[in-house]
């Protein structure tokens, strides 16, 4: 949309370099431009284009969940396949991921199910902050509701979620605080309780400040 939202998300996740600014998690600085350090700091990233930036389609559900977690699920460089399988199965059942088994290749799953696999990966990594870029785009209504439900469970358990969305009802319905971006800047911070679609649109379009 040109507002700089995806760019901001990618910088927080360590995917890209920023010219200025710092990322802090729990008051500790996260080294920039390094997905590995972002993950270590507890940041999980659900990219806008999950097929391009999120999943390795040729790998299985379990292997995709394992990808950022293998350092913990291996010993001396050798993957602890039993532990990996157990963890993957646990998250598959916890998130109700519709797959015949964890060895199924993610390329065969639906969009919503694939999104849940990305989410499972970060839950397994014990992420404290989830950066979700358009998490429900291209996902059917049923799976959307499930993802909202999961997001609520996560925040109830103390995780933070930074959601980027163009879907105004979704923004108003899910958020506690809303930041409106325009031309690469945050134009306004709104309390979700008092916010309306008109108000958000006005700020986004530059009709009011």
């Amino acid at each position, binding site marked *: 949309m040109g507002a700089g939202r995806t760019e901001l998300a990618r910088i927080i*996740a360590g*995917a890209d370099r920023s010219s200025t600014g710092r990322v802090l998690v729990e008051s500790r600085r996260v080294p920039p431009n390094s*997905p*590995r350090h*972002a*993950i*270590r700091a507890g940041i999980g*990233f659900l*990219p806008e284009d999950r*097929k*391009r*930036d*999120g*999943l*390795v*389609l*040729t*790998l299985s559900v379990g*292997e995709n969940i*394992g*990808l*950022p977690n*293998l*350092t913990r699920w*291996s010993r001396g*460089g*050798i*993957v602890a*396949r039993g532990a990996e399988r157990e963890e993957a199965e646990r998250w598959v059942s916890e998130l109700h991921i519709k797959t015949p088994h964890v060895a199924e290749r993610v*390329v065969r799953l639906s969009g919503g199910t694939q999104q849940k696999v990305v989410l499972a*990966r970060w839950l397994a990594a014990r992420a404290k902050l989830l950066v979700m870029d358009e998490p429900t785009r291209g996902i059917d209504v049923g799976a959307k509701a499930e993802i909202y439900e999961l997001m609520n469970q996560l925040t109830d358990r103390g995780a933070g979620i930074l959601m980027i969305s163009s879907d105004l009802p979704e923004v108003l319905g899910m958020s506690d605080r809303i930041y409106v971006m325009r031309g690469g800047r945050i134009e306004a911070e709104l309390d979700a309780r008092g916010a309306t679609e008109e108000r958000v649109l006005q700020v986004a379009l530059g009709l009011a400040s």
Partner: protein
Amino acid sequence: MSGWVRWFRGAGRRFGTVAGLMVLCAILWTLTPHFLTVGNALNVMEQTSINAIVAVGMTYVIISGGIDLSVGSLLAFSGIVLAEGLKAGWGTPLAIAAALFVGAVTGVANGAGIAFGRLPPFIMTLGMMSVARGAALLVTDGRPVSGFSPGFRSLATGQALGVPSPIIFTLAMYAGAHLVLSRTRFGRYVYGIGGNEEATRLSGVAVRFHKTMVYGVSGLASAVAALLLTARLNTAQPIAGINYELDAIAATVIGGTSLSGGEGSLGGTLVGALTMGVLRNGLNLLGVSSFLQQLVIGVVIIGAVLTDALFKEKRP
């Protein structure tokens, strides 16, 4: 896709290579009585061992989404290092270690150019193909180095329980390399990088480091092949290994490894290398001219890639 079509495609992917090899063997068996003898079978496997070992590295590289055109030159260069070391009286273990080290380091240089210098694998390894060949020719002044101790030559001429040592070497290499690819974090990352490099990077994997190592594995495999070739021929040639990259790529692709990366197995590559070896051997037994052989082998390679494309599920 209806159920049986899906089953057929899955089965085709899994058993196509083995079935192809078996059909080929059956045809050759009917055409020539010399084909199916223990002596000839061992002969084929021994002949195949060099290509099979080079193809181990090629499989790693292709699964990671790259290509290595420098394997033949690296083989020649490590072979020359080995031969010069043996001639200079370093002793067999040290000369072997030096050759393996040089192969691995040259491979790592390939990988560093690709991963950190962001050069396309095709260009980097094409350049290295010329660099390593030039180095081999320069060191030897273009002449072969020959005449080694029987102890060293037994690497290739020895046998255990009637099985020639190149076959034992090859099987050990495949067993080890397969375990690394299927059981270790490194192996998993190789598949991840080939399947989707960006997603793997965003999962916190040190993509550039692991990519570099993949080419190191390929260089090391070429050096191991150089040991066997040098021991078998009792000579190291600076012009050894020409066109070996084609044979290794062919073995890998016939074995079902996808040239687009992310998929493949060493078991498949071994079958692919054997298929190439059986084909060469059969054509020789049938008295087919070497010119026609080249043509036939090219057609088989193209056919294998086409079949792979047909059996493959569409990727979005």
